[in-house]
């Protein structure tokens, strides 16, 4: 079946919905999502959205820009960061006008809290920049933007999974092929402009904060269609995931005063980041935790540490550090403050750890969290396919699946929500403008065939390999070898084993041969995507022989601005090999400097 729309948005997270909202104002727009929109992963974002409103203390977009660039370890494109931080302020007001229920200050303004890496550039102390709605900011953003889409009668195709990107011989994107999960039928979505907003791929790793659905479909589909992937070696591990499960405990916990404690009962972050301590940026904190564990200072000598947000602990360090409220009075917190500001966190801890954060410290370990890399785009959210910035006509990307790049080598907390909305909006606006003046691209002949063949290959497989087994092995492998600390030996081993796993993948079989709701088939297909992305990540990590941001090579522990102050691009060659290339970083505002917190 063929559907015709001016603009096709794939993905209904924050990025996709924002794009759809803006595109639908000027063009006939459809949103395709494999999940019901409100199930998208944006809904799990907890801590807040960063914008220099200055509601609680002095703050400026310029400071936000500097923090983001510094946080990125100078790999972010500075023009894009400028857009991000300047538009953030208006975006937060726009969300408020849409009805988002932000928490409020006593005088009725949007409340803000401190977050890792966000500082007052003068005093170097943490600044309150993260606008929040309790610890469910992402939930509120997702709901609010979805509500606006309902109000504007946006057309949704819920529970349709995109399997292929349609690229015609002229190199124009002409839409996508998707499977209607309910009927198992393939549908062609034929459009003038296609926007990918399919989110991240944390499911590559064993311990992750990411949902089951985050298998990187969009990124893999684009890659297979010849679009290079940018900066794939940079994958963020969030320091505080619940031990064993990876469920995230937001940085907001540390924003409210929580501290990290090692097996000797010591607050260890001051040794690694003397100024902002526990609120250093994520790569720094995650490495610090692993270094403590390696030195035998994990809890009970094991591989985890504590996150302690008990009021007595927090207040002890508030006194020690002389932390003040905006009005100059000494800052203190009470058990009620924690319950009120972090209700969901308290609930997670009670449900999954049987612990009350007010009474006990929480066992945590770093958890795979956020893809800095992805589909390369320019500041208009147009997908670019080479180092020269050549635009692929009709193709846009935004959100976590895209790489603008505003996060460089390490994203600051709260910046992703800004990113998905600011660049989601740009994608929607530009796609609608493009669709208004562009001709209909030629639809490739037999457009659905590649997708049909890919599914048939899985469905008809008769091998003995088990999808779940391969998936589990891949995830453990990525965790152990392509995690926070990397070396040539670990990465090479990972690459060899990944190739074995890919070979195994060609010999799988599945039990469900039906059409309706065949999620076994789709999970197998998703595993194919993940294996591709795992390989790209590993190759990119092997190639970058320096340490920068989230990418830490123990065999090259220093940042190397001479050779590596550039983005990487990974291309899929016709023979299935991956070719690495580079692309310059846009500087102009701040010269790279040593990064200390």
């Amino acid at each position, binding site marked *: 079946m063929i559907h015709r729309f001016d603009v096709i948005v794939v993905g209904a997270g924050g990025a996709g919905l924002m794009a759809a909202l803006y595109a639908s104002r000027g063009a006939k727009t459809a949103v395709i999502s494999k999940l019901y929109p409100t*199930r998208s992963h944006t809904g799990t974002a907890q801590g807040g959205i960063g914008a220099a409103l200055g509601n609680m203390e002095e703050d400026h977009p310029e400071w936000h820009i500097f923090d983001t660039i510094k946080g990125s370890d100078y790999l972010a494109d500075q023009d894009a960061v400028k857009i991000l931080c300047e538009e953030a302020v208006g975006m937060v*007001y726009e969300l408020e006008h849409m009805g988002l229920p932000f928490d409020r200050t006593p005088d009725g303004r949007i409340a803000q809290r401190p977050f890792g890496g966000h500082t007052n550039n003068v005093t170097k102390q943490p600044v309150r920049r993260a606008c929040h709605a309790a610890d469910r900011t992402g939930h509120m953003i997702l709901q609010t933007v979805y*509500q606006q889409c309902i109000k504007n009668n946006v057309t949704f195709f819920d529970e349709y999974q995109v399997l292929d990107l349609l690229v015609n011989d002229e190199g124009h994107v002409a839409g996508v092929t998707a499977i209607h999960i309910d009927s198992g039928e393939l549908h062609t979505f034929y459009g003038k402009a296609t926007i990918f907003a399919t989110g991240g791929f944390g499911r590559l790793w064993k311990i992750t904060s990411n949902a089951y659905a985050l298998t990187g479909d969009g990124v893999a589909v684009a890659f297979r269609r010849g679009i290079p992937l940018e900066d794939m070696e940079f994958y963020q591990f969030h320091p505080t995931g619940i031990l064993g499960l990876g469920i995230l405990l937001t940085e907001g916990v540390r924003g409210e005063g929580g501290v990290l404690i090692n097996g000797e009962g010591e607050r260890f972050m001051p040794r690694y980041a003397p100024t902002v301590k526990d609120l250093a940026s994520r790569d720094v904190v995650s490495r610090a935790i692993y270094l403590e564990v390696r030195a035998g200072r994990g809890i009970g000598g094991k591989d985890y540490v504590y996150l302690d947000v008990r009021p007595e602990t927090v207040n002890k360090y508030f006194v020690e550090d002389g932390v003040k409220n905006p009005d100059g009075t000494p800052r203190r917190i009470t058990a009620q403050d924690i319950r009120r500001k972090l209700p*969901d966190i308290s609930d997670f801890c009670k449900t999954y750890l049987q612990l009350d954060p007010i009474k006990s410290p929480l066992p945590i370990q770093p958890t795979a969290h956020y893809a800095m890399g992805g589909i390369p785009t320019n500041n208009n959210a147009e997908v670019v396919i080479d180092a020269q910035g050549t635009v692929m006509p009709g193709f846009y990307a935004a959100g976590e699946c895209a790489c603008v790049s505003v996060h460089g080598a390490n994203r600051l907390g709260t910046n992703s929500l800004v990113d998905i909305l600011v660049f989601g909006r740009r994608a929607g606006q530009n796609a609608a403008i493009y669709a208004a003046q562009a001709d209909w691209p030629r639809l490739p002949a037999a457009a659905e065939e590649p997708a049909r063949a890919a599914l048939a290959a899985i469905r008809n497989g008769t091998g003995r390999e088990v999808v779940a087994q391969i998936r589990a092995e891949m995830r453990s492998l990525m965790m152990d070898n392509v995690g926070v600390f990397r070396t040539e030996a670990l990465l090479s081993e990972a690459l060899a084993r990944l190739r074995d796993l890919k070979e195994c993948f060609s010999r799988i079989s*599945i039990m469900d041969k039906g059409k*309706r*709701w065949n999620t076994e088939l789709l999970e197998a297909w998703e595993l194919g995507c993940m294996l591709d992305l795992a390989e790209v990540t590993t190759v990119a990590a092997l190639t970058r022989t320096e340490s920068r941001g989230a990418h830490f090579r123990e065999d090259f522990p220093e940042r190397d601005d001479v050779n590596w102050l550039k983005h990487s691009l990974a291309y899929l060659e016709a023979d299935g090999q991956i070719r690495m290339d580079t692309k310059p970083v846009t500087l102009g505002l701040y010269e790279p400097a040593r990064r200390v917190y």
Partner: protein
Amino acid sequence: MKVKVKVRRFNPEKDHRPYWGEYQLEAQPTDRVLDLLVYIKGYIDGTLTFRRSCAHGICGSDAMVINGRNRLACKELVKDVGRTIVIEPLRGLPVIKDLAVDMEPFFRKYRSILPFLINDEPPPYTERLQSPEARERFDDTTKCILCAACTTSCPSFWANDSYLGPAAIVQAHRFIFDDRDRGAQARLAILAEADGVWRCRTIYNCVDACPREIDITRAIGEVKKLLLVE
């Protein structure tokens, strides 16, 4: 520990009537029921079908009947449900396959209550002001994740699915009690119809089922009360 999982199976492509699938497996007391389902699907029977995504009670995908009550599979731990775990699809929505039910009727009701802020007054350049107390007024109902656990636990909804259901009312409450909203009259008109709030008979199954611990009956009661005083 060993657990037995009984799942109500039904695949309209080949089954005439639902049947029970039984699976024995090894589990940790702290495993989520969802982990068991994922394990069964991965290693025992790949045809088992259910929705899931976030795995920590935020996305609302995996509401189902667990041991006779509506629960999120990702928020129920094995140690709390015992060694025999009986799992059925939500009641009152058409079963698509196994534990997946057709959510469309549910979302249609959600959309019918005008679930978006209505306010045509030009906003200020910055944020509209709202006092923390006014914000608190509707905090409870902003937590809803549209999992449908409440609506499908309501005997009034089972009896007659024309009832809007608690979830839609919760969503309406979120806007009606937001002092920035101007659409309360339009929403109240919908809720006052025969299939609106009056079909709630204060049975509280919804409150017990809600994974977000929303005081649903109270929200419904506040809407009824408001209709009455108007």
